[in-house]
């Protein structure tokens, strides 16, 4: 992985497996871990992407190193998440940083933080492309299905929204599937709110999602 930037054109003739091999993402491990459920993996990637920005800010902020407890905890979390999602190089660097904070090895620590920042920046380039590839490779038929006469009318949309609200109120993970099923129709009602809802659910912020759905139900009236 040299500092080479990732071009969108790369995607033309490539599948997820090849893309991941090129960019050191452990696709096969991940698929086993996610039970080959690419849609959940995709959701996880989206929340990972927003987390990466947070880590980047933290690594750039010299002050964050002074709170070693918090910084160590943050590296511990990154290690777990990155390895779950197949970004082993990030996980390894985070593990090593966690150890160095523990043992007060400051010189190597600064070097490794720089490495981690590069790896994160690289991943920030890869993740959106991987999401796009997953959509192309695994969700094509799904999209065709929804356009081929599966349009929900207003009444059904309301019913589905009510189902969604119930699921969200009881913190059900299945709410993400329900949202995906009605996303297109919901976007027509309000693009902004649908985007906010999707972000809230990706991050499992159920309380926030509940408010948005309640608003959408009012909008639909």
């Amino acid at each position: 992985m040299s500092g080479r930037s990732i071009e969108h054109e790369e995607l033309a003739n490539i599948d997820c497996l090849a893309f991941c091999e090129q960019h050191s993402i452990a696709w096969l491990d991940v698929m086993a871990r996610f039970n080959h459920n690419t849609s959940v993996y995709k959701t996880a990637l989206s929340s990972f992407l927003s987390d990466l920005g947070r880590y980047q800010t933290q690594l750039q902020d010299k002050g964050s190193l002074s709170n070693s407890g918090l910084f160590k905890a943050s590296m511990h979390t990154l290690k777990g998440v990155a390895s779950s999602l197949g970004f082993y190089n990030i996980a390894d660097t985070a593990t090593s940083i966690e150890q160095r904070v523990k043992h007060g090895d400051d010189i190597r620590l600064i070097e490794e933080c720089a490495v981690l920042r590069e790896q994160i920046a690289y991943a920030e380039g890869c993740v959106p492309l991987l999401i796009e590839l997953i959509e192309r490779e695994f969700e094509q038929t799904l999209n065709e299905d929804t356009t081929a006469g599966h349009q929900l009318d207003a009444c059904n949309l309301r019913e589905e929204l009510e189902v969604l609200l119930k699921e969200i109120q009881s913190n059900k993970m299945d709410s993400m599937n329900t949202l995906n099923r009605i996303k297109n129709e919901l976007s027509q009602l309000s693009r902004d709110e649908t985007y906010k809802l999707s972000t809230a659910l990706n991050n499992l912020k159920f309380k926030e999602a509940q408010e948005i759905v309640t608003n959408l139900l009012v909008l639909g009236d």
Partner: protein
Amino acid sequence: MSSTELIGGRSVDLTKATVLVVDDQPVNIQVIYALLCEDYTVLAATSGEEALSVAREARPDLILMDIVMPGLSGMETCQKLKSQDDTSEIPVIFITASYSSEEENECWMSGGIDFISKPINPMTLKNRVKAHLMLKYQKDTLLEMVYLDGLTGVFNRRYLDEHLIKHIHLSKRSKRETCVLLIDIDFFKQFNDRYGHVQGDDALKQVALLVKSKGLKRITDFVVRYGGEEFVVVLPETNISGAKQVAERIRAAIQTLNLEHLDSPFGELTVSIGITGCLSYDVDDSAVLEAADQKLYQAKVSGRNKVCF
């Protein structure tokens, strides 16, 4: 791997089981969701605080708990769950990324029943979850067997012994009345002698069913088979006049069953009911039952098929 299992040749369906996954990192929850979503209902909470409220609300069959979380840690959350009556029975499995034996000991001490280590091995996770759900199912079944009356399916006397006293305590504390109904089938010995035990048992089942459907209105109300042909209904947060209405409803419903009983002056099966409130007695369940029995006696001597309070 399916979530239907055989126990003693009986198939057990675990697909209705609910698993709550607690982790401050949504990504970790999504990994677990991907592995379990085909077999169970998966709930999520991203903090210990949220987990406590979801657990009370949804009563999951199993909780998978991260250890390191901002706010309440996994262990603190587990301790809180174990200290609350309504969540203490839910098994908690910790998901841990570190391997220190001190941390493991703390997990056991806070009430966890098992560990799964991160990064998660899918087969291990699936099998552990299934094994613990199965244990929970067996335990629930066993509890049912311990607390339910085999013939009528309502609670048994052991349940009453353990639970009435709790309600008396609650009643004293809140100063809100809990009422007890003692129900006795009139001339039941004669019924058995005339119609035989098979019909006698059948009558008991029908009476139990009616008492349940007419007598229980709230989730905290319960019916117990107290002795041969005696039933007890416990109505928390109900005053005497409310209890009287319930009792009258039960008495009338049983008479309208029109179960022939030619050795009764009524010509059909009837019940007598004694009612008492708990507040006027000490914290003593046998004194309360004794008082209900005296009211029942009054109902009997004043002609049966009656409610006395």
